[in-house]
């Protein structure tokens, strides 16, 4: 791997930037691997990286049906936080946040990780109770959290309208100062580059069309680039997980929906943090390029098309202007959608399956980006050892049979 350093930057600047090497090899599939990860998004690449780094598996591959960074990893609103309510989720997301805090150095790449703080606003009594409860729950779990009054909200984010005459006045908010944003597609590129350097084959334009099994055990995969034999398969395919699982006759509690986001024209820095609001339902940050990044809600119906309805965007813009009247004449440049796999309890499934050797990491729904490093870390453990890591044991598929759900609809902050 070509290391980034001040020296390498200077050397390449002098030679006109002609000598930079590709981040990863364009690998062709081999006939067999020790383990194969299906899905080359952030979670899949992180899984492969930690399989190689933490567990010493080098003869492994990541299969991606499109291109690296072309799925939800490059389509989200890049928000990172760990202020979830329950102990199980708090531990999982906080583990991820701690990994984010050292990830630039670990991957030797600038992820533009910015701990600018995330505000979750309260607009009614229910929001206040839920918010204060979550702040206290976070503190008990060692996660930084604060409750802010409307005036403190205004001080932290000056462009918010906190007037009492607003239709949904701001009554307070939770703040996690260690939360923030990162450049999303660099996360995929950084993990791909680091995994490739450890010998992982990253195979693009390779779609899985069948899962080979013998005596209830996985033996390989049929793909558009030939058959690949392997005793271990990890499916990390977000919105398409149900499609892959059905190839192994596994039924999941997932529903796939389009989730949209949009960006404005770039402007000078006006918005210093990330703001989320459940009640009027919008979330807003400003990228380093200056664009305002706005998240929308999901379309109600099931869909596999990577586009959403315009009336969802219209609803989002109404909420945005309600909270930030200063943005009323801002022009929006682009909208796009990704397919998210929504789980009934708004928590992920990181689990073994009834098929031996087949593991799934899915159900992240509208909020998977923030968990990328932690998700890869615990899923790599699950795939390598065949047993869940203590952090993901509560997130097993059998919780829908036992009833031990982890309801995070409040902390998920996107209506579904």
């Amino acid at each position, binding site marked *: 791997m070509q290391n980034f350093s001040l020296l390498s930057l200077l050397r390449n600047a002098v030679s006109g930037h002609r000598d930079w090497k590709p981040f990863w090899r364009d690998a062709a599939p081999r006939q067999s691997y020790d383990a194969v990860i299906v899905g080359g998004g952030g979670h899949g690449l992180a899984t492969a990286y930690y399989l190689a780094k933490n567990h010493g598996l080098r003869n492994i591959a990541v299969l991606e049906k499109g291109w690296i960074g072309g799925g939800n990893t490059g389509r989200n609103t890049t928000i990172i936080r760990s202020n979830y309510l329950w102990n199980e989720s708090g531990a999982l997301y906080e583990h991820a946040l701690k990994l984010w805090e050292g990830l630039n150095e670990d991957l030797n790449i600038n992820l533009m990780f910015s701990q600018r703080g995330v505000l979750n606003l309260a607009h009614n009594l229910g929001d206040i109770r839920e918010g204060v409860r979550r702040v206290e729950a976070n503190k008990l779990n060692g996660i930084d959290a604060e409750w802010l009054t409307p005036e403190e909200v205004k001080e932290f984010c000056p462009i918010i309208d906190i007037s009492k005459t607003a239709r949904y006045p701001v009554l307070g908010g939770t703040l996690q100062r260690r939360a923030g944003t990162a450049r999303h597609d660099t996360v995929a590129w950084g993990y791909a580059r680091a995994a490739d350097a450890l010998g992982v084959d990253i195979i693009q334009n390779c779609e899985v069309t069948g899962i080979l099994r013998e005596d209830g055990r996985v033996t390989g995969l049929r793909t558009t680039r030939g058959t690949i034999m392997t005793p271990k398969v990890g499916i990390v395919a977000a919105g398409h997980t*149900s499609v892959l699982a059905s190839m192994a006759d596994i*039924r999941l*509690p997932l529903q796939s929906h389009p989730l949209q986001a949009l960006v404005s024209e770039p402007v000078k820095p006006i918005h210093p943090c990330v703001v989320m609001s459940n009640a009027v339902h919008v979330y807003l940050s400003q990228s380093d390029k200056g664009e305002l990044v706005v998240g929308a809600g999901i379309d*109600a*119906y*099931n869909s*596999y098309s990577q586009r959403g309805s315009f*009336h969802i965007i219209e609803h989002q813009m109404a909420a945005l202007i309600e909270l930030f009247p200063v943005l009323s004449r801002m022009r929006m440049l682009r909208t796009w959608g990704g397919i998210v796999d929504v789980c009934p309890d708004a928590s992920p499934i990181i689990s073994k399956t009834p098929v031996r050797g087949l593991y799934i990491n899915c159900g992240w729904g509208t909020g998977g980006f923030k968990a990328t490093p932690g998700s890869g870390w615990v899923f790599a453990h699950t795939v390598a050892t065949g047993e869940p890591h203590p952090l993901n044991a509560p997130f097993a598929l059998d919780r*829908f*049979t036992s009833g031990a759900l982890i309801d995070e609809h409040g902390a998920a902050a996107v209506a579904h």
Partner: protein
Amino acid sequence: MLKITCPWCGAREEIEFSYGGQAHVAYPADPAALSDDEWAQYVFMRDNPKGVFLERWVHSQGCRRWFNAVRHTVTHQIDATYKPGEPPPAQAGVK
């Protein structure tokens, strides 16, 4: 925005409707006899096909009645809508 034909009111815009998920998930005939796994199947597990899907909608801003639709989850094309209790129209692509 989809244009959805309510079997009672005719074609209306999508914002008049609410979504109800997979159709034809019948309440268990003998609930007391169900195992935990069978309850999980009934309560949580759902089909999530990439293709033709039989699904429920309710005309919440209109007649407020439920009905079923045959819709493709990639093209969003609605091939048919029909009243509850009626069988899905027999056609290619429907499982």
